[in-house]
């Protein structure tokens, strides 16, 4: 195959675009897709400070890399989930990338800072580990971004992730979730703006971007994700895509263009009932927020953890919000940390 743009030998094909690209033209293609997503959805304004949620995987590192290439002021946040050697490895990739490029990478560790980890939370709550993991991530990315004054949190959710979530939401007609599923969620009381700049790129493209940019990332799958419902949806969607290239993009991008607005009201009516969590101040519709509830249940029976939670809560109440994260020391020559 030849590169669609320059006719040099191609190294990657993208059937959805009926195209193949050489290395240089592919990297440009990826940056153009991110630029278009940001512009189409008004994700960022000049001068915005972005906190990128970094897992050590291909998507988050690609998101960080492309945002930097496009000139954005982007720092990272790594969340230690306590998933054994998988977490150790993913942390190593995240910190190596930050160190190599002289970037600020904040770090939160669930066990160290909150007294629980994802496997323990899954057992304590009798829920799938992905539920405890996603809940912890959503809460802490938002909290750290608010505390440190970032304008937006960027996540590495790509076209395949979002198409799989959309399929799940449609299968169950989760109308409030459908109303919230969008490449940008504007800031609101207690919520920082959330953006998904990779939403126009499939995960095959983000993986190829990392390989061609020589970004090392954790290839191994999270051991907790085995049997994850969204993995099943992705496999189904990839079967469709193989038979009919472009199906995933038509499904997802068509939803954003033509159907999302029909469900926005369902999400808005849910937001109308939000009030501050008495424990941490995060918006919630419950007596306490889902994160504080999870943390309390996951640390029951562990005296040290209970004491830690009580101390954190007391400090959080006295200061409005607690400052409990560590920021990785910046290497020589690195920009000043975010706060």
């Amino acid at each position, binding site marked *: *195959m030849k590169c669609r743009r320059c006719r040099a030998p*191609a*190294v*990657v*094909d993208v*059937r959805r675009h009926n195209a*193949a690209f050489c290395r240089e033209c592919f990297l440009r293609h990826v940056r153009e897709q991110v630029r278009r997503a940001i512009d189409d959805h008004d994700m960022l304004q000049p001068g915005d400070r972005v906190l990128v949620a970094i*897992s050590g*995987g*291909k*998507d988050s590192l690609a998101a960080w890399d492309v945002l930097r290439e496009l000139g954005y002021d982007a720092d990272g946040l790594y969340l230690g989930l306590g998933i054994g050697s998988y977490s150790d490895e993913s942390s190593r990739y995240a910190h190596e990338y930050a160190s190599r490029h002289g970037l600020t990478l904040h770090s939160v560790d669930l066990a160290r800072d909150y007294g629980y980890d994802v496997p323990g939370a899954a057992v304590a709550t009798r829920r799938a580990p*992905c*539920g405890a*993991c*996603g809940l912890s*991530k959503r809460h802490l990315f938002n909290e750290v971004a608010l505390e440190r004054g970032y304008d937006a949190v960027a996540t590495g*959710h790509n076209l*395949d*992730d979002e198409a*799989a*979530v959309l399929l799940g*939401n449609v299968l169950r007609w989760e109308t409030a*979730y459908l109303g*919230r*599923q969008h490449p940008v969620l504007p800031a609101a009381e207690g919520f920082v703006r959330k953006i998904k700049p990779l939403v126009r790129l*499939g*995960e*095959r493209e*983000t*993986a*190829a971007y990392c*390989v*061609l940019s020589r970004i090392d990332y954790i*290839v*191994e*799958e*999270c051991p907790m*994700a*085995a049997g*994850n419902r*969204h*993995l099943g949806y*992705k*496999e189904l969607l*990839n*079967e469709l*895509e*193989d038979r009919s290239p472009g199906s995933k993009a038509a499904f997802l991008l068509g939803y954003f263009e033509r159907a999302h607005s029909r469900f926005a009201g369902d999400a808005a009516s849910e937001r109308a009932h939000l009030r501050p969590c008495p424990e941490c101040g995060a918006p919630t519709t419950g007596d306490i927020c889902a994160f504080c509830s999870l943390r309390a249940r996951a640390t029951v029976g562990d005296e040290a953890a209970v004491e830690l939670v009580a101390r954190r809560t007391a400090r959080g109440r006295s200061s409005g919000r607690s400052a409990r994260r560590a920021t990785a020391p910046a290497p020589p020559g690195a920009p000043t940390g975010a706060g």
Partner: protein
Amino acid sequence: MKVVLRNPRREVDVSGPTTVDALLARLELNPESVLVICGDTLVTRDAQLADADVVEIRPVISGGATP
């Protein structure tokens, strides 16, 4: 050729020459869900693979897609 598969990591021997498309079909892998790396470079679906090549088939699907 030696073919390295991931998750879990393992190696299989496949006789060449063949194309990337034919190799993936033989291994019953969906081309949408993998990258193929020959030596240290990505290759397209029509690329020819020689019997002496070392090929990595790298999955691209990740499960951390909680909304």
